């Protein structure tokens, strides 16, 4: 019964995340989905991955997304365009696939008590090496994310330097704080700005 409630809640939270018109709300619904998936995994007996999902999915990813939205500036809500036919088609397709595959699940086996660390390092050692490369790529991504703020400050400073009559020039070296006004207007490319 509890599993059914959690599953229904998860699907509804995911649906709200998808149809939400504001990015911040969608991010919070996504965090709820992560937390609920963590609970489902815990119920299944997969405690280790439940903790990882809760900390990474509901924690790290949410913080990163909120950070990115803060940098971008939460754009105005975009109206949700209902695609009823598409929604019905997806629901029917998933019902069909779930109905066809659920009966082909093997009979439940007794879970072999095997430590996760042994499987991770002995059986899937190559994957662990690939994951280290992935984490390195992720760190590069975060560095790229953070360096954008420096670019914005630099472009702002160069703009002020080219219009000294309209703005106080002391602000050029003062590295002004970032706010939404520093983000260029649509179609105003950074490449065209003299840096």
């Amino acid at each position: 019964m509890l599993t059914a409630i959690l599953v229904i809640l998860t699907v509804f939270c995911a649906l709200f995340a998808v149809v939400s018109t504001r990015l911040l709300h969608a991010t919070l619904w996504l965090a709820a989905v992560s937390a609920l998936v963590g609970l489902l995994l815990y119920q299944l007996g997969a405690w280790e991955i439940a903790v990882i999902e809760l900390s990474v999915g509901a924690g790290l990813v949410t913080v990163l997304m909120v950070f990115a939205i803060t940098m971008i500036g939460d754009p105005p809500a975009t109206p949700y365009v209902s695609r009823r036919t598409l929604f019905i088609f997806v629901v029917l397709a998933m019902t069909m696939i779930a109905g066809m595959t659920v009966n082909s699940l093997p009979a439940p086996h007794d879970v072999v008590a095997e430590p996760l660390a042994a499987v991770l390092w002995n059986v899937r050692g190559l994957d662990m090496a690939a994951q280290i490369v992935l984490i390195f790529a992720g760190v590069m991504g975060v560095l790229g994310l953070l360096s954008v703020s420096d670019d914005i400050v630099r472009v702002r400073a160069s703009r002020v330097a080219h219009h000294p009559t309209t703005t106080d020039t002391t602000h050029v070296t003062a590295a002004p704080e970032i706010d939404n006004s520093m983000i260029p207007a649509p179609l105003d490319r950074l490449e065209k700005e003299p840096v």
Partner: protein
Amino acid sequence: MPPVHMLFVGAWFLLGTGLYGLMIARNVLKAVIALQIMVKAAMLILVVAGAQTGQLALGQSLGITVIVADTMAVVIGLAMAVRLNASVGTLELDDIIEAEG
């Protein structure tokens, strides 16, 4: 219906929700969110399959790989979105396509 079967069916519907979100997404960040939902569903199916076949540790190790890959995809996607916003000034896919010609 046994709880494992419920989880299995729920994971398929979660995958469908993510797919629907990806198809109607008109914002880059909304597409990233929809992709996240799909990946969570895939991870849930992997762990359920592991539990059902008695190889829960193997299912969990696959799930960890999926979580790491997914998180890195999100980080790189967010970095690209912020860069895109700085250069084009919008995250709306239609506007980006129009601006890029």
